């Protein structure tokens, strides 16, 4: 039964509701008019390396207290500004202020020219060169790699297949290794109900619309829930800023190079090669057991894109020391949102600090 309210409480709640509705109206108008769109990915940075469409960004972290530097490796299907969403809600900003020297490897926006890019292009060509560039820029002999989602897969493949890679530690966030548990969309490819030819467009890539709609099939009413959340919190300026930023990111996918997509479907989805230890790259075998550097496997319990069961086997698969960080959250709580600031990033920074060397007040 609902509790009864005293007249004074009732008046206070009425007053609050009136105030919230006034704020809702103001924020609703600016949301529809698009006058207060947040500027995303604005932390100051320099492009220190470039090859084809890939770029390595070096953030201007003011007080570096730890070595080696950290290189974020982003996914091939989404935009990297999720790692640097908004001031006060940015993984890059948090790590910089925690004393780390941060680089970001951004793959750019693929077009026809990149349609033949394979996993080897990323793992054997771009990644080693970007790592060398980051080392040259920072003056450090080694790096920490931090891969998000498919970027985590690329970082893992690099660490496993380049035994001489100058990696001190490896962090992977929402990174699938057991593709048998990647949900209905992956199952459709595995069982042959969908073929790569049904998905790859005339540019030779998987179009961003297909990627976006593919994610929408996971939760068909997800958009409605987002609108309900919007209405519920429309009065809250801070929430609105985050909502608009996240909304923009979730709709902002990039074309997935067709050749890499075909490899992903054939090797990772159909053969589940990472789990079975049958992965090959450029003709040579790649075994996760060859990842011998300390690893942190960060997973989200409510992740519907990379379910826990797809990510958690990695911890036992690698050949070195492996730690886990499980979050009571969804796919994007690694890098953005309140949970990221309060839980994920502090724990990530603690693990990184414990596996880093202290610098003596180096400034850029």
């Amino acid at each position, binding site marked *: 039964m*609902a*509790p*009864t*309210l005293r007249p004074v409480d*009732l008046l206070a*709640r*009425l007053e609050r*509701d009136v105030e919230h509705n006034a704020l809702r109206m103001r924020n609703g108008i600016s949301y529809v008019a698009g006058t207060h769109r947040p500027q995303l990915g604005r932390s100051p940075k320099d492009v220190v390396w470039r090859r*084809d469409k890939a770029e390595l960004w070096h953030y201007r972290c003011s007080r570096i207290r730890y070595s080696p530097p950290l290189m974020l490796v982003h996914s091939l299907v989404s935009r990297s500004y999720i790692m640097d969403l908004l001031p006060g809600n940015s993984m890059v900003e948090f790590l910089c202020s925690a004393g780390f020297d941060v680089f970001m490897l951004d793959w750019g926006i693929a*077009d*026809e*020219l990149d*349609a*033949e890019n*394979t996993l*080897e*292009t990323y*793992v*054997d*060509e771009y990644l*080693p*060169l970007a790592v060398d560039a980051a080392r040259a820029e920072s003056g450090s002999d080694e790096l920490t790699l931090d891969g998000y989602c498919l970027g985590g897969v690329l970082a893992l493949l690099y660490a496993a297949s380049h035994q001489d890679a100058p990696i001190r530690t490896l962090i992977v966030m929402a990174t699938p290794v057991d593709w048998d548990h990647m*949900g*209905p*969309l992956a199952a*459709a490819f595995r*069982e042959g*109900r*969908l*073929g790569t030819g*049904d*998905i790859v467009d*005339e*540019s*030779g890539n998987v179009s961003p619309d297909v990627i976006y709609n593919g994610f929408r*099939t*996971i*939760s*068909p*009413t997800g958009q*409605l*829930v987002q609108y*309900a959340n919007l209405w*519920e919190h429309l009065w809250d300026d801070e929430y609105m800023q985050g909502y608009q930023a996240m909304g923009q990111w979730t709709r902002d996918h990039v074309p997935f190079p067709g*050749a890499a997509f075909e*490899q992903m479907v054939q090797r990772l989805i159909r053969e589940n090669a990472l789990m079975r230890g049958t992965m*090959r*790259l*450029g*003709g*040579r075998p790649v075994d996760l057991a060859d990842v011998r550097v300390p690893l942190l496997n960060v997973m989200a319990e409510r992740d519907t894109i990379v379910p826990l069961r797809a990510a958690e086997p990695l911890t036992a698969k690698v050949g070195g020391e492996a730690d886990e960080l499980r979050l009571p959250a969804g796919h994007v709580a690694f890098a953005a949102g309140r949970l990221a600031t309060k839980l994920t990033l502090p724990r990530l920074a603690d693990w990184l600090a414990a596996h880093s060397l202290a610098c003596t007040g180096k400034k850029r």
Partner: protein
Amino acid sequence: MDLAMSPQSPLWRRGFDRLERMIGEPLEVVAHSDAFFEGIARARRTQEALEGLAEGLSRRSLHLFGVPSRSEIRHLREQLAHVERQLRAISKQLEAQASQPPTTARERSGASEQAERPSARQPHQSDGSSAPRATPREPASPPPTRSEG
């Protein structure tokens, strides 16, 4: 109104969540079913067939006005991308060569003997996959330079 409800979630929201689950769960079952994905594949093929049909019908009239059809433009873009990819590969090879230290004639002859032997570091592509492109670390096959010869 949510005046008498719990402070955590307003009444309308709880109603919405219940309704969303009532609709969402059956929709998820449909969206994750075999038939749904087969339908997507079939719709995609039908769309392609219809586009091909429309293209065939419109091509002749477009040609009357000297305008290329969509498939012709697509073909040109593919060709352009192919040429750009080749240029990219050549410039990478040149870059790799430029970054190598200059060698003496004797070292070059030794290197060419070694190049004829199978390499242990870069196994032959046996699984049908695309070979990694030439990198400054391991150029696949350096082209002859103008200075040689």
